[in-house]
């Protein structure tokens, strides 16, 4: 290719890039919908997505009139994670409250509770837990047990021997869930944005019949693929940068790592999402197929990436599959750059898979874009 050819190619590419960008941003409603909903989702979901347990109601059926039982109830009412203690007066009512989901746990204190405490120093109470909320239920049992452990009914009860165990949580000393969620959401929302914008790009032209015209134009397939990937790459990278800005200045999440490395990771990540979107788009004949295809690929991808639940909890086969997903690697990079000051070596270990995914997807998209012509 001579210098002249290269120059005309760049001019053509520039024109196509502007055309593609206008295609998406020409409609003022599109301009809004590309940026505003993802940013709103970040604000809402960051606060919504929490595995912490607080503000829950429990029910108590106290059959005992003694002092020890009353003291137990007081301790429950004072517990910080409990919003309200519902007092009921029969076992049926206790079960009803639980079945109807009004309370997450129901405690039955037997009639001989205080007497048993007086005789043996220790009493029993049954806790019924709503298994429909299995995760929160387990945490609630943990909290209730620690309340039960700390109660002293008489001054002379021998304290349980203390162990000198100290716990320190690195990177996030108070285990603020928001610090974990905001970087993860940034990656997930940017991924969906890039995937959906590119998924539509070729499919829209196919549906309108203009893609055939594009293929017979002087532009090469490489140019077409490049011009289709650049707008989403620009828009979604910008969107992700806006979200990172919000994370730092609005959510006040400490940023300890290297911004340059995060930026490289971000561009490669968006490029691999764009690659996947282009393959979907090149296979699809209509916009509907492209969008639904984007969903069928996008939704499982996010689930396996470890965004909602850790990859370590998954079966081995899915753990391997997770390695082929761009979001898995980007989550490690972005969470590491925010909280862990992730060293370059560890960032690099997750950068090259992103590059591999991006540069295998783009040629595949080129092959499909052409072969579907017949």
């Amino acid at each position, binding site marked *: 290719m001579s210098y002249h050819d290269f120059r005309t190619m760049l001019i053509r590419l520039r024109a196509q890039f502007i055309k593609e960008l206008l295609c998406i941003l020409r409609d003022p409603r599109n301009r809004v*919908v590309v940026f505003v909903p993802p940013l709103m989702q970040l604000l809402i979901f960051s*606060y919504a997505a929490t595995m912490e347990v607080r503000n829950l109601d429990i029910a108590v059926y106290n059959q005992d009139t003694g002092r020890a039982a009353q003291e137990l109830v007081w301790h429950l009412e004072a517990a910080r994670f409990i919003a309200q203690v519902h007092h009921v007066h029969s076992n049926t009512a206790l079960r009803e409250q639980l079945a109807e989901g009004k309370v997450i746990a129901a405690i039955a204190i037997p009639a001989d509770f205080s007497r048993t405490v007086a005789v043996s120093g220790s009493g029993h109470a049954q806790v019924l837990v709503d298994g429909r909320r299995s995760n929160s239920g387990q945490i609630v049992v943990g909290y209730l047990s620690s309340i039960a452990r700390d109660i002293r009914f008489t001054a002379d009860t021998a304290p349980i021997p203390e162990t000198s165990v100290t716990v320190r949580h690195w*990177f996030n000393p108070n285990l603020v869930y928001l610090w*974990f969620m905001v970087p993860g959401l940034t990656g997930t929302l940017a991924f969906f944005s890039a995937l959906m914008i590119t998924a539509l790009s070729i499919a829209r032209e196919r549906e309108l019949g203009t893609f055939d015209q594009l293929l017979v134009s002087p532009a090469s397939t490489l140019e077409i693929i490049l011009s289709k990937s650049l707008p989403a790459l620009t828009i979604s990278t910008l969107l992700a940068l806006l979200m990172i800005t919000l994370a730092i200045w609005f959510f006040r999440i400490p940023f300890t790592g290297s911004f340059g490395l995060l930026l490289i990771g971000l561009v490669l990540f968006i490029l691999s999402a764009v690659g996947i979107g282009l393959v979907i788009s090149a296979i699809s004949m*209509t916009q509907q197929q492209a969008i639904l295809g984007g969903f*069928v690929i996008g939704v499982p991808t996010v689930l396996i990436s470890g965004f909602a639940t850790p990859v370590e909890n998954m079966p081995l086969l899915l753990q391997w599959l997770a390695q082929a997903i761009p979001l898995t690697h980007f989550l490690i990079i972005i969470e590491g750059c925010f909280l862990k000051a992730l060293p370059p070596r560890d960032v690099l270990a997750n950068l090259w898979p992103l590059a591999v995914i991006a540069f295998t997807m783009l040629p595949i998209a080129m092959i499909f874009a052409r072969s579907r012509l017949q």
Partner: protein
Amino acid sequence: MKSASGQEKSIVVRRFDPARFVALVRKESLQAMRDPSTLLIALVLPLILLFLFAYAVSLDVRHVRIGVVLESPGATARTLADAFSGTHYLDVTFAYDRREVVGKLIAGELRGYVVIPQNFERHFADTGSPLVQIITDGSQPNTANFVANYAQGVVQTWMANLTGTIPMPAVQLEPRYWFNPELASRRALVPGAIAIIMTIIGTLLTALVVAREWERGTMEAILSTPASVLEILVGKLLPYFVLGMLSTLIAAALAAFLFDVPLRGSLFALLVLSAVFMMPALGQGLLISSLARNQFLASQLALFSGYLPAFMLSGFLFEIDAMPAPIRAITWLIPARYFVSSLKTIFLAGDVWSVFLPDLLGMATIGLIFFLIAQRYTRKSLE
């Protein structure tokens, strides 16, 4: 036929014609079935999603990788270190210097480590209590909590075995987990996943199909026929209603027979709940399409107002009670919230109508509001 009164002239009153309606439904059904992507989303996606919610999205922590740094050469310290390897909840890597594990913690290869320091034996001989430091990877708060609690538990059990006396707390709680005694998070997640699948079919698919008609101008064409707006809209939605119900039945069968989630309630209640949930789901799809009128906009709106809120704000994965008050208020507007609560109950608890009735009311109200607004916007374009 023209209306006699002058004021009603602008609103053309059309009579319901069963033959025309059947023809409309037939046309829409054929159109829906012709595109293979419809079947992909109605049959293949539920299978994939249920499988993932059953096996991939697991809150049950197993085999968490931790390090145990044994800096003390003593025999007592050795037994404590061994105590950590005896459980399948932890996957222990032993080390003799904490520098060996710090890098692994940062890289995410370990989720925490336990240090048994050099002066462990002397401290234990002096005070009778073990000196142990637990470090966790706080960047994953849920796992960090588990590591801290579980490691403390291991130390306590080890102490109890060593001294031979198990300390008696003043109150001993006997927890019993109702509805889900094995505490498999799968059992709570799979029913909720049905709400997400139905949201995708009802909202996304409908929004796309109707938006395409607007985009191509065929919606205007069909609105100019003698059929009434209501007939057209119902005719358009009916095939997707049937598709959604079919998909629910398939998902319920998969949940019960393949994923080992019991259906303790009745099939009748499940059908009633699903049918009523299709109202807000379809209504939202219709509303999105009549506002957006192009497929790109419709898909973005369906994604950000339908699918993602159903996933994040429905109580499917994250506890609604634990959210801040303004966000709890927003969840009341999410139809999936009501459906998830009822689905978990019908699968795990049974027919509890005192749960279902408020949920049904919530879904029906939201559905009605969506339909009224959508109808208004559709009619407006006629003028």
